[in-house]
């Protein structure tokens, strides 16, 4: 009986000791390139799995009632862009601001806020899910991105839309700190994907991305670029900034944020 007890205690202590080793081992494992790449492979499964369903039927994200709108909608990331370009535009009430749509398109566009507001619009009350775990509900009004693409006519080689933003969230001197995002054409043409200029019935406030932000309702918040200046149709994003297709993607987050 006594011998058994010692064995059990030894087993328990052994397990605890081993778990400590395992823990520091896991940190190292996670930083091992090959292993990290293996972990990242799960993103392909999530994207492939979800697209099997999302491609065929293009389902809409749930839309909510006005009474569901969050009283406080947390603004994350940049809330006060301090680049010279942005400050100058903001001082003038975005009167001189123009959205550039170019890259692999047949008809590059340059649009003012008034021109955007005169286009067909969509208003939707949707849930914003942050990668951190919280959710807020807000009402967004804007031009369907699909409508803008119909005007600009992407070339057959275009695979992604690249959103260039005015804020330098990374705080770096070079452009690697500038916020940017990419989405593919499946999400770009989704009816709920809009370039929003209004939130909860008001002009889009600065902390939420004035004058124009992207809404991609079937993905997480970090995909929804704020302070958008330019939309570029591209066939590849591996040469842009750190090459992962977005500001947060360059910092380890998944490019496909539908999960």
């Amino acid at each position: 009986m006594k011998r058994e007890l010692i064995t059990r205690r030894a087993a328990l202590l052994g397990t605890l000791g081993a778990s400590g080793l395992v823990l520091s081992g896991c940190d190292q494992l996670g930083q091992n390139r090959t292993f990290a790449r293996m972990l990242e492979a799960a993103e392909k499964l999530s994207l492939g799995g979800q697209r099997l369903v999302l491609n065929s039927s293009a389902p809409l994200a749930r839309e909510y009632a006005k009474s569901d709108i969050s009283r406080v909608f947390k603004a994350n990331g940049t809330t006060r862009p301090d680049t010279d370009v942005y400050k100058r535009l903001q001082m003038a009430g975005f009167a001189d601001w123009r959205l550039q749509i170019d890259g692999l398109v047949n008809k590059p566009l340059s649009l003012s806020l008034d021109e955007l507001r005169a286009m067909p619009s969509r208003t939707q009350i949707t849930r914003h899910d942050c990668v951190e775990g919280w959710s807020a509900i807000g009402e967004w009004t804007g031009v369907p991105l699909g409508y803008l693409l119909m005007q600009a006519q992407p070339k057959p080689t275009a695979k992604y839309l690249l959103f260039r933003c005015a804020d330098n969230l990374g705080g770096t001197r070079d452009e690697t700190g500038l916020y940017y995002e990419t989405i593919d054409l499946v999400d770009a043409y989704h009816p709920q994907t809009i370039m929003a200029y209004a939130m909860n019935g008001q002009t889009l406030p600065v902390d939420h991305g004035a004058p124009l932000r992207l809404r991609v309702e079937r993905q997480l918040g970090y995909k929804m670029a704020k302070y958008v200046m330019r939309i570029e149709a591209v066939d590849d994003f591996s040469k842009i900034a750190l090459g992962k297709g977005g500001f947060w993607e360059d910092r380890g987050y998944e490019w496909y944020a539908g999960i």
Partner: protein
Amino acid sequence: MAVDTADQPTQAQTPRRPTRLTRGGKELIYRHSIAVRLTHWVNVLCFFVLLMSGMQIFNAHPMLHWGIKGAETDPSILSIYAEEQLDGPPIGWTQIGSAKFNTTGWLGVFRDRDGFPSGRAFHWRVTLPSYQSLAEGRRWHFFFAWLFAINGLIYLIHSFVARHVQRDLTPTRADLRNIGRSILDHLKLKHPRGEEAKRYNVLQKLTYLIVAFVLLPLMILTGLTMSPGVVSAAHFLLDIFGGRQSARTIHFIVASLLVLFVLVHVIEVLLAGVFNEMRSMITGWFAVRPDKSEGNKP
């Protein structure tokens, strides 16, 4: 098969599984199939990685809400946070409902690797990675979530096809009638011998059924409900769980129940004989302790 013999005396059961004898004369039965053993250990690995990376993810928003929405300024049913002090180190608070507990050192505030107070919800010793990284925590979580789901699917299919569920896990009527005695046995830490040790007792059966068919599937479903992509195609998930934030809360509660299960499970393994139990889950062979009433058989 088990049902047919359920009301007979246990001696009448004729185990169909291969048996042999240990050198000490104990009867060895082949208890766990290769599929059960493999999926069990893959599950162990997935459980720990998912739990620890899950706590890393939780630390990014250490609050739980109920309903369709919920953020920092919204009401929470659980919140773990640090309160800075003008004089002295910060205090770690854990709020559950309207109750608030000082959990400094454990939750909310603890010493980091270098001994400095760190204001995070779960201790670095139990998160994966140990340092703060939501991005890496998510990478671990989703890779092992896929592994866990595939492994679970293999287990479920195998369990029905090989009649593991019907034969070993479904309680018989006699089992259910004697549930009171089984509870008493557990409380007295008494473990079955002889014929009775060859099968799961009723509490074991019910627990495994609840874990495999209720709790683990709930983890997957509530996890999927947090995915904005998945719920756009499956609104009903939002309705079942009462919204994305409720699903997140249920994910956390069910994970806690699984931790409780694993604790009891491991304690039972230690009590029942760690060598024999480990051998049976590794090689399949389980030694039956002879029934005292049967006397010592050669």
